[in-house]
């Protein structure tokens, strides 16, 4: 408990400045470097876990309900924040009918997310603002890696029997290894939610440790499936166990649960991240996913990060949106910012 988040900002500030510039980042399908000290994990500390279980839903909802009434981003700042949202995006396709061609199209959009006249209007010059990663099922990892080669855009694979996580552990781990072998440098795993209901923390911890080991240098994002976890207390406890086990990111949802990422859930998870930082000094990333489809919603989430965690969590090393249709809405808003006209979806290239 030696450090505060403000100190974290001071620690990370030089680093943040470094990682802001996309070209300096490491390209996809190389094996190392996410620009931040990786969480080594810690022993499963049930005493510490117990100390974070006090989560008050009503109070959290009040905070989540007013946080975006307290902050407002207008005009050029809003345009800049929306560009930031693009850079924080895991552009995602996770449909049963995905094909290689569909994934190539998505990658093409990732490489050129903005219409040329918009990029020009915003005076971006040579600066390429692109999504942080493309996120696909395992069979399309190789396709994405090839399509994004040299671009700096990461390739993320959902894994471990996504979205339910109920396959045998052995095959789930093999799935990770296969995706890493194909070139994925980020692995989004799911937890078996039943372990949370049963408070089988040791089992959950051991599984995630094994997953982390299977990832090797690839970054591990642990999806909690918060829509299934019923209480915010469960979300807090599962978040903490995932971080203790070595998660680089904790992520809300698969997008397949009936309830997607909500701000109260996000608030609990970022507070878990803060508590873990205060305990260990390590910075963990956060990824809300599912249902984030409007530019306004992306601003809401970024405000949450800045208010509760601070500026470092507005870098792709520490914050991602899982999103598919968000990009188009951001493009429309940026066009409106430049022209004063409200735009239409069909005026922007689809993914």
């Amino acid at each position, binding site marked *: 408990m030696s450090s*505060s988040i403000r100190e974290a900002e001071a620690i990370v500030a030089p680093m943040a400045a470094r990682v802001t510039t996309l070209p300096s980042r490491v390209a996809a399908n190389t094996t190392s470097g996410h620009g931040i000290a990786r969480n080594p994990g810690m022993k499963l500390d049930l005493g510490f876990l117990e100390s974070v279980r006090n989560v*008050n*839903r009503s109070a959290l909802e009040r905070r989540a309900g007013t946080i975006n009434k307290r*902050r*407002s981003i207008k005009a*050029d700042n809003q345009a*800049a924040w929306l*560009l930031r949202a693009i850079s924080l995006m895991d552009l995602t396709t996770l449909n049963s009918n995905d094909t290689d061609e569909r994934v190539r199209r998505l990658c093409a959009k990732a490489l050129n997310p903005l219409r040329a006249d918009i990029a020009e209007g915003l*005076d971006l010059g040579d600066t390429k*603002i692109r999504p942080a990663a493309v996120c696909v099922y395992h069979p399309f990892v190789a396709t994405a890696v090839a399509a994004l080669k040299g671009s700096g855009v990461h390739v993320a694979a959902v894994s471990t029997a996504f979205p339910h996580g109920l396959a045998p552990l052995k095959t789930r781990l093999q799935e990770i290894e296969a995706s890493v072998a194909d070139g994925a440098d980020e692995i989004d795993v799911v937890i078996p939610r039943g372990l949370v209901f049963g408070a089988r923390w040791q089992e959950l911890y051991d599984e995630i440790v094994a997953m982390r080991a299977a990832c090797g240098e690839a970054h591990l994002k642990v999806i909690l499936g918060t829509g299934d976890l019923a209480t915010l207390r469960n979300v807090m406890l599962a978040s903490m166990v995932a971080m203790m086990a070595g998660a680089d990111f904790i992520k809300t949802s698969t997008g397949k649960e009936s309830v997607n990422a909500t701000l109260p859930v996000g608030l609990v998870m970022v507070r878990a991240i803060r508590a873990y930082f205060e305990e260990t000094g390590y910075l963990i990333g956060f990824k809300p996913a599912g249902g984030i489809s409007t530019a306004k919603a992306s601003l809401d989430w970024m405000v949450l990060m800045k208010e509760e965690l601070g500026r470092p969590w507005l870098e792709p090393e520490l914050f991602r949106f899982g999103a598919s249709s968000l990009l188009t809405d951001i493009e429309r808003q940026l066009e409106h910012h430049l022209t004063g006209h409200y735009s239409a979806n069909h005026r922007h290239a689809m993914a």
Partner: protein
Amino acid sequence: MNILERYAAMDYGPAPEARNEADAWVAARDFDKSLFIAGEWRAAKDGKRFDTSDPATGKLLAKVSDAGAADVDAAVAAAGKALPKWSAKSGFERAKILYAIGRGMQRHQRLLAVLETLDNGKPIRESRDIDVPLAIRHFIHHAGWAQALDREFPDHKPAGVVGQIIPWNFPLLMLAWKIAPALAAGCTVVLKPAEFTPLTAILFAEICARAGVPKGVVNILPGGPDAGAALVEHAGVQKIAFTGSSEVGKIIRRATAGSGKKLSLELGGKSAFIVFEDADLDSAVEGLVDGIWFNQGQVCCAGSRLLVQEGIADAFIAKVKARMGKLIVGSPLDKNTDIGPLVDRTQLDRVRGLVAEGAKQGAECWQPDCALPETGYFHLPVLATGVAPANVLAQEEVFGPVLAAMTFRTTEEAIELANNTRYGLAASVWSENINLAVHAAPQLKAGVVWINGTNMFDAACGFGGYRESGFGREGGKEGMFEYLASKPPYGPAIKPDSEAAAAAPADSDATGIDRTAKLYVGGKQVRPDGSYSMAVVNTKGRLAGEVGLGNRKDIRDAVSAARACKAWPAATGYNRAQVLYFLAENLSARSDEFSARIADLTGVSAKAAGAEVEASVERLFYYAGMADKFEGRVHQPPARAVTLALHEPVGVVGIVAGDAAPLLGLVSLVAPALAMGNTVVAVPSRRHALVATDLYQVIETSDLPAGALNIVTGKAAELAGVMAKHDDIDGLWVVADADTCKNAEAQSTGNLKRVWTSNGRSLDWASGAAAGDEFLRRAIEVKNVWVPYGD
């Protein structure tokens, strides 16, 4: 900065709320005629005006008519003229108008919000999201009370013409809290907004005119203290409602003494914010932001005293400081501003002075390192640690963004610290353990308790204080009573007790064994401190006996005994009921003896005396039965929360009973007080004191715990004054001559005890109307405990 630089910086940047509509409204108005009287816009009779300015810049907004005594006369006359028709309207008719006001405000809510922020300096987020929506909610909620009035409040009528004086911290919201229930009850209103912030009240009057409020029903008089004083003292006003400082509240209490005006006071506070070790600490930190940095801390119920359990204190304070570093102090019109300017230079100076004094007395005052605007009355948020209970920052209401932090070890200590204040407005309790939270809430001397929340308000829930935070409630059913009057069964005026009569010598006819009637204090018969006695004379002029002449030290002892009696307030209602039934049983067993005594002392027939004893037994029975039935309510605010409106005893209640019906009159006052769990110091009729002293043996055989009921015989006028000035008496009921009643009210300001008097009249105690809910309601405080829930 270009877009890419902004992309790197990720700052919020300015987000100013447009003010052009508000400026246009101000520019178009003739503020020379800002008094809204009888539906017309008038200039002040003496032509005076005062300035109202924008506290963020110090710039003048408008020169507003300054009401004087002549304008108050005109407004009260207009309200008086409008009263008969307005109060005679059907509930539905009044409901339609309240509804129209609410909707009218809703249609102009952004204009109201921007004006409020311009005039007061509160952040636009607060005026837009909190003040104005709550004000609207108040009118729409009270439309329902208007329509339900006859059914919900039988035997009540409107209080009459109401004078209302509101502060500058929530100008529109306080206006709504005052006007909505008054109109619903059928009262007409003269309201004086604060000098610093008259603008939204003026816009409100425009909305009233458009909403079809009949002329004279709502009168708005911008003005200063002179107008306020004229309103308080005006003979045409039947009720005063005031929100403001305890200092002015006390002045009003004195000024209205003996006038018969109803009075409700909502005053200052030094509310505790208690964080137990099992709280959701991050949420508690956000609670503090809403508790002490809401409206720059210029909130009467601000959680200004942080009490945090020792084991988590360091971690919690670190979190508070980190959060303070994120607060944005700036232009109140900017949507990103958390803390705007204080309302005025005088307020800024006061806050600075108190912080400096607190630091001098040993508090460590910490401020975050954040930018302040160059103009305007801004003050950085302050966290004061190492604050001793005696420090000025722990004792005085700062009314600024200053939090005083202390630690505690146990729940008992937390409650002791929380209650270690003259105030009693609100408290917050943070714990995830519902057993602990619901255990703490009733022990806190505060009119509002928020569990895991803070500064939650709603029209359906009562708000108001204990102790020197004032009396009366605003909001909820309990708030409606403040604007309604029931007619007690008054009898003839009571003549002052003459010293000569009290000292008259007389001879005795006694033949039995001599009896010494003492005082009854702490469950024992004790001799009076002064060792003097006074004669009780029967109607034949013969000495019936001698009783102790109680003095101020006897009252002191009796109050100590009443305060020390913990068993009675803690007893269950059923338990209290059984004791009161037993008292009735034992009284009934000795009814012949009491009848004879009453007949001898008062000269009534044996039959009438027997009837008085029988009625006394019946009354004891009635209140015994009500001990477990006069219950609170559960309010339903528009949130996932229940608000428990608990009925709690007032505390130590002083009672001065009149001479008429010496037994029934005493029982009719003592029984409801005891039934609700108060402990009592009673001064019985001087002339017929033996009736009361005869009761000692009845009390002693009835299982009433020692100290629950104490009886001090003596001179009513003198002892009423002693009790009025005793700062450990919470309530005082006086049936006596007009001067004694007036003095009791005027002298009660030391601790602002709740005083009820018969205003110089006797009461017909035999009437059924003397045993209604009136005395039960007087015997309780309504505490609203907010319990948000969800898992």
